[in-house]
C-alpha cells in the first residue's frame, strides 16, 4: 500500500543509527509512521511492501514511481532525514545478501548521511540520482545481485568528475556490462605494485579504476560530451582492447 514519504528527524535518525550499530533485534520499522520521530514530505507516495534484488531496481522504482517530477534535485538530495527514512523502509533490500534471514547492515554511511564527503555511499539516494541522471547505464554500477553496494558502485560514484558525466557512464556500460546486465569478471581489479613494475603483466589494465584517468586525459583534447559511446571506445588506448573486444561481440 502506498503511503506518504516521510523524513526521520534527529531523534528518529539516532534510533535508526543505534540499530545499525547493534542490529540484534529486527529493524525499528515502527519508527516509519511514528509522528514523534518523522515528518511528512509533501508530494511523494511510496509503497513500503516493495522488495528489490539490486540497488538499480530500487533506483528505478524511486525515479519512475516515487520522485517522478522533482523541481529541485539538489533540495531532494539534501533531505537527509528522508533518505534515512527510505533506507529504513527498504532495509531488507539494502543489507548484506546471502545466507538465510535478514543480513547484517553495511557501514552506516550507506543508510544515513554521516558526512557530505561520504554522501555518495547513501545507497537509496545515489541509486535514485544515478538512474535519474544516466538511466539504464546506472545498472553497470548498481546491478550487483551479490551486494547492494558493490565495488563497481564505489569506483564509479566516488569521483565527482565522472559521477555526472554522461559519456563516461555510457562508455563504462559498453565496456564492462554483459548483455544480461551483470558486470564482466576482473573489471574492478586493482593493478598491483608488482604488475606496475612488469610491462608484460596486464593485470588491472583497462579496468574501471583506470577509466576515469583515461577520460580526464582525453577530455583535454576531445569533446567527449558530443561523442557516442562507440566513438569513444574506439579512441581508447590498447589497454582497453580486451573489454572493447567483448563490447563489440
Amino acid at each position, binding site marked *: 500500500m502506498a503511503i506518504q514519504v516521510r523524513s526521520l528527524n534527529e531523534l528518529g535518525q539516532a534510533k535508526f543509527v543505534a540499530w545499525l550499530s547493534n542490529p540484534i533485534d529486527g529493524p525499528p520499522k515502527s519508527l516509519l509512521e511514528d509522528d514523534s520521530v518523522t515528518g511528512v514530505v509533501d508530494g511523494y507516495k511510496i509503497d513500503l511492501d516493495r522488495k528489490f534484488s539490486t540497488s538499480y531496481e530500487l533506483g528505478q522504482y524511486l525515479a519512475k514511481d516515487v520522485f517522478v517530477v522533482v523541481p529541485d534535485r539538489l533540495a531532494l538530495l539534501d533531505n537527509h532525514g528522508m533518505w534515512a527514512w527510505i533506507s529504513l523502509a527498504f532495509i531488507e533490500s539494502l543489507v548484506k545478501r546471502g545466507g538465510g534471514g535478514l543480513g547484517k547492515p553495511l557501514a552506516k554511511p550507506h543508510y544515513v548521511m554521516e558526512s557530505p564527503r561520504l554522501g555518495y555511499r547513501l545507497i537509496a539516494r545515489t541509486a535514485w540520482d544515478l538512474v535519474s541522471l544516466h538511466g539504464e547505464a546506472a545498472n553497470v554500477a548498481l546491478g550487483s545481485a551479490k551486494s547492494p553496494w558493490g565495488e563497481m558502485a564505489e569506483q564509479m560514484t566516488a569521483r565527482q568528475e565522472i559521477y555526472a558525466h554522461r559519456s563516461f557512464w555510457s562508455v563504462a556500460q559498453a565496456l564492462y556490462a554483459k548483455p544480461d546486465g551483470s558486470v564482466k569478471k576482473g573489471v574492478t581489479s586493482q593493478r598491483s605494485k608488482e604488475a606496475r613494475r612488469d610491462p608484460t603483466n596486464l593485470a588491472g589494465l583497462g579496468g574501471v579504476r583506470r577509466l576515469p584517468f583515461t577520460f580526464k586525459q582525453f577530455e583535454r583534447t576531445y569533446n*567527449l560530451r558530443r561523442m557516442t559511446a562507440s566513438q569513444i571506445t574506439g579512441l581508447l588506448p590498447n589497454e582497453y582492447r580486451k573489454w572493447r573486444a567483448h563490447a563489440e561481440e
Partner: protein
Amino acid sequence: MGQITRTTNPTGLKKIDKRHFVVRAQDDGKGGRVFWLQSFDFEAAKLDSSVQMGCIAHAGSNEEYFDLGPVSSFIRTPFSLSGLAADKPLKFRFIFNRCDESLLVGYVDGVRALDEAGALGSSLVDIEPASLRGIAWRLVLPEGTGTGEKPNVLVERALFPTAISAAGHSWFGVLVMPEVMRQIAMAIAEDPSALDDSESWVAPWVDFIEALGAELPVRFEEEDSQAKQAWAEEVVARFAAKGVFEHHMRRALAEMGGSEPWPSK
C-alpha cells in the same frame, strides 16, 4: 627522438585568451543560478566562424555541459545551473571543435562570470557572492595547480550581492582581507618552491609579495610552524599598511565613533 614537454604542443591545441569572453551569471530567484555568454570575440581568438563552442560549468566538484553552437552565432539565452551547488565558486571551461569532428581546436579554463568576479578579474583574489548558510565569508584556496586558478573569497550573498559591494565595504576590508592574506601567506609558506613554478597558482604572488616590501619565503623546515607563521604575519602587517586599508580603517573608526560612513568611492 623528440620529447613531449610542458612547452611542446603536439596536439596543436590553441589556448584562447580569457579576455575574449564576457560571461554573466545571476540568481534564478529559486536558490539557483543562471548563466549566459554575453560576448565572445572569435575573430580576436583567430577561430573560424563555423567552429563549434561547448561550455562546462564547474561549481566545486560538480559540473554541467552546455552546447553553445557555432562561435559566430552562439546561443546567448540564459542556461539554468540548477544542477550545480549554489554555494561553490562558479568557473567555466570553454572548448572548441570543428563541426564534423570531436578533436578540440581550442580551449580556455577558469573563466569567471563578470557578475561574480566583479571588477576584480585582474586581481590575485576573486570575491564571489554565494549562499553560505549563516557564514559571512570563507576562503577557498585552489585545489589544482594551474595558473588560471585563484584563491576565492566566498561571501554571503545576503550581505554582499556583488563582489564590488564586498570589496568596497570598509568592515570587509578591515576584518576579512587581512585574514585572507594570512591564509594565503600560510599556503605559500607550506611550499615556497611553488613560487618558482610558472604553472602554479602561487607564482603570480612573487611580484605582489615583493611589492609589499616583504622578503620572499625561504624553504622552511617542515615542522617549523612558528617560522611560517612569523613570515605570514610579516606579510599581513605589510598588506594591512597599504593605503586602501588605512582608508578602510579610518572609515570603520569613523563609523564606530558615530559618524556617518563616507560614501564608497
